[in-house]
């Protein structure tokens, strides 16, 4: 056995705090080490070449790389040693950058620690056996969860590449939050005009199957071969038969909250969310339906010309296999009422959210595009916009920036002037964050061309006075208190991950943050991947983001998924558990703890029944190793011997 140790300087990243020469020298004294050297940049082309040359020159059979985190470059160096003719798993990475040079300042201490870590790596690689990856076929097909603009874009991109796509949406129509918007910044494109054609395209695409009123219930399997249960919830409307004529909605006597219009206006127990919905079908909400509450009604069934109403309809669960999953569950706006009692906490009808205001501005909205005060239906003249409600506010535990508030507030100020020419808009803001293409120019137009008055400061209190609202704030630039009498106050509420995203994340085994946003694989280099292979993120489910960024990320996610699916088959990690069947007693404690059902019974010719690991199902967690009473099931690459050797060497 001839072990080579390469100590990377990483420029000065490591060499500034760890004496790499001394580490290499110390490594030469370790058992079985035939060669050790310090390399300036080992991941670079010349660095890798030096490693390959050393392997040949010194006849190395195992390699220890003391460099950065294995999460960073393990695959790189596995490839390098493979190029040198070695089994790629005969490499051990020792992390002397993130776990050593970057977190210590004393050179002597850091160098001693690095030597310890190298000794541990050498001990571990001594017990390493060559491993050979298996291949599994990839299921050709992708699941997109969430039918907002990001989900639609990802689905269309993949479908155009010839991939069968299932698009799952929990509401009764696709379109998401973008369908609620009137116009979009900074071009003032009408949101429906650019979105609805794409919605229709998604519905009509031969490679896309649309499933509305549906939610992912369970996810099994792994990259390339997920098996997903999708529950289609009963809506009492036969989707095939319904023509979207809305006669049921007109005749329905049961009033219900209008979710699509964020409670601006009212809806019916059976309704189509909006006239451009895709698919254009009605949905009955049992909790508001007279038939289900009082046991008597069925008006919709009587009036439906298509015979589409079916009160007996039941949930259906569909199980299907997919190679890749794209999550595009979007965002919810922050529920401000409990957090901001100083803004009335929801008790003043004329304090509304920006999304509600958006529905008022929309020509297809419940007010027909006329801005009206909710309290008396009058047209407001003085409108106050308050930025950062639930954003950049550590006092309520939400220090994050919503990233779109500055822009949509400027847009709404502009649209207000267009709707009500004799109106005046006031915008209380903290900073104007307008870094996108054409964004800053747009916020300036709101002020210079459309006369919006921008006041830099927070609002401390809103209270009613004589039918109007008094907005008390501070203008930090003028250094004085300001009071504005407003007819209508619009709150630019912050964003959180969509409700239920955390639950979905747990089903998918991906992580999420405290705001319900899903976590990307790496903030810079893996922005659309998650830490679970084969699952990608698109749009505002990952972080607050605007439409162009959501669309761009959706296309990126689609490209990643298409790349995975185009491979046809996948290498599986060979670091799986293995049973020593000679010594297995057949107690199956391993099977009880295995989260993947990767243990099966195997009958031997001598009549014994022993455990066998199904390599394609095993994910390599090693939980079974600890459960096994005689310790005869062993995770390759993390065997008991290797771990004990590491511990012993560290404590020498």
């Amino acid at each position, binding site marked *: 056995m001839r072990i080579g140790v390469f100590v990377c300087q990483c420029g000065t990243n490591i060499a500034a705090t760890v004496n790499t020469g001394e580490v290499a020298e110390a490594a030469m004294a370790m058992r079985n080490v035939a060669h050790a050297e310090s390399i300036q940049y080992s991941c670079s082309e010349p660095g890798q070449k030096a490693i390959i040359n050393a392997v040949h020159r010194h006849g190395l059979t195992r390699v220890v790389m003391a460099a950065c985190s294995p999460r960073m470059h393990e695959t790189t160096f596995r490839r390098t040693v493979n190029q040198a003719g070695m089994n790629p798993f005969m490499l051990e990475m020792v992390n002397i950058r993130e776990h050593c040079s970057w977190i210590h300042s004393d050179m002597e201490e850091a160098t001693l620690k690095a030597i310890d870590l190298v000794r541990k790596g050498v001990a571990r690689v001594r017990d390493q056996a060559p491993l050979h990856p298996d291949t599994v076929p990839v299921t050709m097909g992708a699941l997109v969860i969430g039918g907002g603009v990001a989900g639609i874009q990802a689905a269309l991109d993949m479908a155009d590449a010839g991939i069968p796509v299932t698009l799952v949406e929990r509401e009764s129509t696709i379109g998401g939050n973008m369908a609620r918007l009137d116009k979009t910044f900074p071009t003032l494109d009408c949101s429906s005009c650019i979105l609805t054609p794409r919605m229709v395209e998604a519905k009509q695409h031969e490679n896309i199957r649309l499933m509305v009123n549906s939610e992912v219930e369970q996810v099994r399997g792994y990259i390339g071969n997920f098996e997903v249960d999708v529950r289609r919830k009963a809506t009492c409307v036969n989707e095939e038969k319904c023509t979207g004529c809305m006669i049921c909605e007109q005749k329905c006597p049961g009033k219900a909250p209008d979710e699509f219009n964020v409670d601006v206006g009212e809806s019916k127990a059976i309704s189509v969310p909006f006239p451009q919905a895709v698919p254009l079908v009605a949905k009955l909400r049992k909790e508001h339906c007279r038939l289900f509450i009082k046991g008597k009604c069925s008006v919709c069934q009587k009036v439906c010309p298509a015979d589409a109403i079916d009160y007996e309809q039941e949930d259906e669960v569909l199980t299907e296999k997919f190679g890749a999953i794209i999550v595009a569950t979007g965002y919810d706006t922050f529920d401000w009422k409990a957090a901001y009692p100083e803004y009335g906490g929801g008790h003043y009808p004329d304090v509304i959210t920006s999304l509600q205001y958006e529905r008022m501005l929309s020509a297809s909205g419940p007010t027909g595009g006329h801005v009206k005060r909710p309290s008396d239906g009058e047209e407001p003249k003085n409108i106050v916009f308050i930025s950062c409600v639930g954003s950049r506010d550590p006092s309520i535990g939400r220090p994050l920036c919503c990233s779109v508030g500055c822009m949509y507030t400027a847009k709404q100020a502009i649209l207000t002037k267009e709707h009500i020419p004799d109106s005046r808009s006031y915008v209380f803001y903290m900073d104007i964050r307008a870094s996108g293409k054409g964004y800053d120019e747009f916020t300036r137009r709101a002020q210079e061309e459309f006369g919006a008055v921008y006041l830099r400061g927070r609002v401390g209190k809103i209270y009613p006075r004589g039918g109007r609202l008094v907005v008390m704030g501070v203008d930090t630039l003028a250094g004085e208190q300001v009071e504005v009498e407003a007819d209508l106050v619009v709150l630019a509420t912050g964003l959180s991950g969509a409700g239920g995203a955390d639950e979905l994340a747990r089903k998918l085994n991906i992580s999420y943050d405290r705001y319900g946003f899903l976590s990307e694989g790496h903030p810079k280099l893996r922005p659309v991947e998650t830490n679970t292979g084969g699952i990608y993120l698109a749009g505002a489910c990952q972080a607050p983001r605007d439409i162009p960024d959501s669309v761009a990320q959706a296309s990126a996610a689609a490209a990643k998924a298409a790349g995975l699916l185009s491979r046809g088959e996948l290498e599986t990690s060979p670091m799986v558990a293995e049973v020593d069947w000679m010594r297995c007693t057949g107690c199956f404690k391993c099977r009880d703890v295995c989260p993947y059902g990767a243990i099966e019974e195997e009958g031997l010719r001598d009549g014994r029944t022993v455990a066998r690991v199904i390599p394609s199902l095993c994910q390599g967690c090693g*939980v079974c190793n600890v459960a096994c009473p005689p310790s005869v099931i062993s995770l390759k690459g993390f065997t008991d011997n290797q771990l004990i050797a590491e511990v012993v060497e560290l404590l020498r």
Partner: protein
Amino acid sequence: MAEQNLKIIGFLCNWCSYAGADMAGMARMKQPADLRVVRMPCTGRVNPLLVLKAFQEGADGVLVSGCHPGDCHYTDGNYYARRRLELLARMLPALGIEPERFHYTWVSASEGARWTQVVEEFTEQVQSVSSGREAE
């Protein structure tokens, strides 16, 4: 305070805590140098006997850290870990090992600052129990 160099072993799961420790490194958060990390696929792979082995070999302290309950990369490996390690923690006094020398916790991939804090606090804790023993 005259501090002796300690030997502390940290068993970190690859997906959360190891990545969290990487994150601390990327943010250049300085921490005591007494801890040596052993990378594990999952805290569910941490055999309590391995922890005892470390003490037997002379470790001053052993720290185990994994994904937060509910966030395990392998669904529920850390739940097994929690049961096993809690039992171990309660057994340590019977084996003559001060319970302060052992700690298990959860640090996610984004909690670099928390990881640094965990290392600082645990190092201090082991330091104080070690110097207390010397004084005896």
